[in-house]
């Protein structure tokens, strides 16, 4: 039972919140509403996927929000060459930022939280240097990416779903995934077992960077404007919360992909519920605090005293 709560608590919580909303929130059952929730949660889901990988190695990536901003800036700068080019450049930017974090963590040996904190400050600044203010765009391809749907499902939601599957595959079925988990479980042992620890670490941060950049591109496409100043502000906290609420421990050595997505959905539904019921900001924050604590308490590692 307790084990069940630990493993499926997030699902139960999401379900409970859904039931509450169906009962008490007008128009909640509209298809359009579900679309809205999924579309809004997409950037957090994508960022959380990378975050889960990083946390699996016992690390943390605070720079994701700033990397989103950088991606937004690069997208705006290169949109003149077409949407595809702009997106590729943005993703490369994310990869470079991620690699910087990864190198600081693995080769230089700086603690992840500090290394990525420096990036959080610096990369956001860089994004602002590149694009000092919000820039609107009219590129039809990019706007289509943000607003089109396939069989009624928004493109960006499909992208997030595919990425989730990909990451689940990566974690469960590939050598790389196993190595990530092993490194998080015991780095010294992994090193002595001949795992390419440093390379894997860099790659993990690169993946996190690329995913954050992609989230930035999609958010930009949806906003129809590039806004490096405020895009992705504090998203690292939401992503970490999603990962942890999903039952991936901050102490590393375990990654739960599907539950991470559920964790993100939980936080999204929660904030949607509070907004729809028009509660003041103060309430929203206090309720969020309580729910986070409750969720993490229920899904915590047991048996260790």
């Amino acid at each position: 039972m307790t084990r069940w709560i630990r493993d499926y608590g997030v699902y139960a919580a999401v379900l409970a919140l859904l039931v509450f909303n169906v009962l008490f929130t007008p128009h909640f059952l509209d298809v359009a509403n579900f679309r809205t929730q999924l579309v809004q949660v997409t950037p957090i889901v994508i960022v959380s996927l990378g975050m889960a990988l990083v946390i699996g190695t016992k690390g943390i990536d605070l720079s994701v929000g700033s990397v989103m901003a950088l991606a937004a800036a690069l997208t705006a700068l290169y949109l003149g060459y077409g949407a595809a080019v702009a997106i590729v450049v943005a993703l490369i930017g994310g990869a470079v930022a991620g690699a910087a974090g990864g190198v600081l963590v693995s080769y230089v040996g700086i603690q992840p939280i500090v290394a990525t904190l420096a990036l959080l400050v610096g990369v956001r600044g860089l994004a602002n240097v590149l694009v000092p203010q919000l820039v609107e765009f009219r590129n039809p391809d990019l706007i289509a990416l943000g607003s089109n749907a396939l069989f009624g499902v928004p493109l960006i939601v499909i992208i997030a779903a595919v990425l989730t599957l990909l990451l689940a595959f990566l974690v469960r079925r590939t050598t790389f995934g196993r190595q990530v988990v092993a490194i998080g479980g015991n780095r010294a042992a992994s090193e002595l077992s001949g795992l390419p620890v440093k390379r894997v670490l860099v790659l993990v941060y690169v993946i996190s960077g690329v995913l954050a950049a992609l989230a930035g591109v999609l958010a930009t496409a949806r906003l129809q404007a590039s806004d490096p100043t405020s895009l992705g502000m504090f998203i690292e906290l939401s992503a970490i919360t999603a990962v942890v609420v999903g039952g991936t421990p901050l102490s590393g050595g375990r990654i739960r992909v599907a539950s991470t997505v559920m964790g993100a959905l939980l936080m999204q539904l929660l904030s949607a519920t509070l907004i729809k019921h028009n509660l003041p900001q103060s309430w929203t924050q206090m309720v969020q605090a309580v729910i986070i604590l409750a969720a993490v308490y229920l899904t915590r590692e047991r048996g260790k005293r």
Partner: protein
Amino acid sequence: EAPQTAAAPTGTAGQQIVQTPTGTAGPTCTLSQFGGEKFDLKSATVGFSQSEKEANPFRIAETKSIKDEAAKLGIANLKVTNAQSQFSKQITDVQQLIAQGAKLLVIAPLNSDGWEPVLQQAASKKVPIITVDRKINAKACTDYLTFIGSDFYEQGKRAADKMIEALGGKGKVAILLGAPGNNVTTERTNGFKDRLKEKAPGVTISFEQTGEFAREKGQQVTEQLIQSNPDINGIYAENDEMALGAVTALKGAGKQPGDIKIVSIDGTRSAVQAIVDGWLHSVIESNPRFGPLAFETAKKFLDGEGIADKVIISDREYDQANAKDSLGEAY
């Protein structure tokens, strides 16, 4: 209180105009009353403390206007600091400007309260402070020289007028609030609500959530809003960015221009363009070009003229009638 509907006089390209001409209203302050000494503006160190990153049209235009005017006047030693939205940092910034020997301070305060330490220090050195955009809650002429800026409460009221006009005095309205804890948010909200209560009890406020003055947040909140409150008729956004975010949300939900009336405050170029496109109903201006007025005030002060305790600028408003023609003047 006189509602200003006038478009800017031609040729001034969006210059600020003073609503209460200096010397006519309120107590005035002269150099001798203030207790300072005359100095030469050109050779003096002048400090400008900006509150937020120059990343939105308002702040960009504001800082640029100050710098440009200083350059025009030949002020060689202008020191600019930026508090990056951290109030504690702004206090320190200003103190360090004083320590660098600034003879005149122009401050765009992040917050109206909490200036005690700066005011004390400036007063003891007799450094005149001109605050722009937002007020400082202190005594003019003793603590600081004067305030130049808009009346946010008044802006809220005028937005309410526009909303009432748009809805014909009846309907449901949602408010996209600014950042919580901000004087601007508070005053623009109060002005709006008071005016509705006073003039149009038929217009009810059924929803108010913060969009934190940001476009993306405005979009997200609006998406939730139109889902759960499809009967909404109007949206009052406390700045243009949130209004434009709301527009994106409405577009995404398949709404047509004008389905939901949006009124906002600021007067950025994009917002005025959105009026032209039919998405926004009207925009109350909040003019950030403080440079000319600030330095003109300083010069007058140094020349011994009396300075009013506040210099309220007359904000224009944009709507279908004038949007297209005024596009060039929006910032």
